[in-house]
């Protein structure tokens, strides 16, 4: 289903990158490519270099450049706005989630999430994207 698709993970926690690797090695998402960025700045540079990205998973809380700063800057610079960004948050950040959506996040994913939840989100988002593409 996702073969040939490329996803970018932006998170300062190496543990989380490993979790994404585990999830993307499961049958549902196998065959997709994962790109990794360990801070907001690097994530932004990778987004700049990869307009073909299927989706970005963006951690909210990172030192240097937070997820919200990432989204604000992308909106200001109108950088690859067609790439859906999923803001990854922790419970108790409802206000930030609202701000993220306002700043252009396509969805948010709350920790803790299960592999199934992430898979369902990817399916939903990619269907939405292809519907939008065929509709236009």
């Amino acid at each position, binding site marked *: 289903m996702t073969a040939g698709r490329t996803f970018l993970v932006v998170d300062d926690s190496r*543990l989380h990158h490993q979790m994404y690797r585990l999830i993307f090695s499961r049958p549902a998402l196998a065959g997709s490519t994962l790109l990794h960025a360990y801070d907001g*700045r690097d994530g932004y540079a990778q987004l700049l270099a990869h307009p073909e990205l299927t989706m970005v998973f963006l951690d909210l809380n990172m030192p*240097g450049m937070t997820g919200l700063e990432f989204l604000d800057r992308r909106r200001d610079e109108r950088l690859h706005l067609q790439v859906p960004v999923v803001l990854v948050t922790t419970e108790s950040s409802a206000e930030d989630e609202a701000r993220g959506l306002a700043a252009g996040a396509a969805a948010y994913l709350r920790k803790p999430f299960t592999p199934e939840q992430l898979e369902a989100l990817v399916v939903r988002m990619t269907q939405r994207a292809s519907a939008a593409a065929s509709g236009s």
Partner: protein
Amino acid sequence: MSAPDNPFASLMADYVGECLPLAEEVVERVIALERLWAAGAEWQETHAPLKGLLHTVKGNSAMMGLAPLQELAHVLEDLVGLLGGEAEGRRAGAALLVRGAGLLTDLIRGATAGPIPEIIPAEFAEEVRAFLQAEQGSREDSQVERRMQEQRQVDRRATRAVGEFGGDGTITTIRVDSHRLDALLEYLGEAMIAQASLRDAARPLLNRRRATDESAAIDQAILGLERTLKRLEGALMETRLLPVSTLFGRFTRQVRDLAHSEARQVRLEVAGGETRLDKTIIDRLGEPLVHLLTNAIVHGIETPEERAAVGKPVEAVISLRAVQRSDRVLLTVSDDGRGLDTDRILVRARALGLAPVSDSPSRAELLALAFLPGLSTAEKVSALSGRGVGLDVVAGSIRDLGGQVSVDSEPGRGTTFTLRLPLTVAVLRSLLVRVDGERYAVPLADVAETVRVGEQTLHQVARQGMMTWRDEIIPVLDGGEALAGARPASRPYCVVLRSSPRPRGLMVDAVLGHQEVVVKALDPTLGRPPAIAATTILGDGRVACILDTARLGEQLTRVA
């Protein structure tokens, strides 16, 4: 999501690897903040990253299905908000935060061992919530607003500070399971042994056909292989080195807690945290260092009243230092307490039949007695170590790592323990010697000199061999007797060992030269033969024993 069926259960070690340093950093930062307050300083950036640290631990714990840890990190995050507030509330809040972050550290450390206890963190979280509620009740809205403004300012400053270290985006660091490094080391050891066998096997060939093109090429190839293996060894050792700060990090809180429960005022000063040591050594140093720190607090440091009475600063200082000296690392644990009581040590040594060799022992000899079994067993069981242990146990664990421990102490001024440790435990520079046809490897770091001795320079004093060396009379042991229980024989060479408190000699038949040997641990089923630390395989495939020079010294001390 319970831990066993967590989809990320296989990442538990990575979770601990990432979160433990974060939780330890929280403890250190809050303690640093308390010190700043005590010194009269105000709101500091030291605490700005606290929220981020706890937030990461919270998110990671949530993903791992460790709900009690998630909850604990969550309430601690709330507690951080208090630190910018009024003096009274913030001090109590900081104390609570240190306790909570300590609990968090312990629970994370235990996460790979089994299920996380739920009641302890839940009770603690409840205590924090009650505390926060009481605090919030006693607060004006305007103060809350001011605090939030300050928080925002600090957040902005912190953002700037961290933002300066951006990279070029390439990954320059990877994490590797340490077992893989152990395996690499094992293979390297085998390659080095194979190289040595090749060299030994080729030697007759090279000697017979002198300087033909063929033999020169073989010679070149063997030398090239040796050089490459040496470089590989160096590079591999380098990857196994970790800064000792990874070890020191956990002591700040332990010292603070124990000092508190023992009613002592203690400041722990740490220096040289960037000094690097082999991971195996770091892993096994924790326990002996905790014992030394515990001893310092429980036995070394006086009560604040006692200190005031003798004109010392009420707050005692324990310092933990690391420094590298060529291929050894020196770790020192010093306190400015009352010092060791050498009179009492001598009385106990005599009572146990472990009297020193000479009638008027030097101070150094008396202090060395403290490491004998039964001499220093702590009388009081402490909360930190959980049991009373003696310095002999500490000395034993340091010896097992190929190190040595010595002590210096001055009455009323304090005590310093010095641990001399090898950088690595896997490859040892050694002096090969022969005794009764067997070859032994003596750690080169312990060898002061090798001398050829005539019969006339050896003397027997009370069944103990003695020899003059550099204007000093030193005891000597017969190699055959000490190492294999054989009968003493006349042997032409003496290896002078740099042992504490004074040098000792070991008589051997021949000195075969320097060689790097790969250390192989003794098979545990063999027990612990006297004076042998480990074994190695030499170039001809035969096994040789590596001497435990410190325990050779021990035998001598017992001869009275």
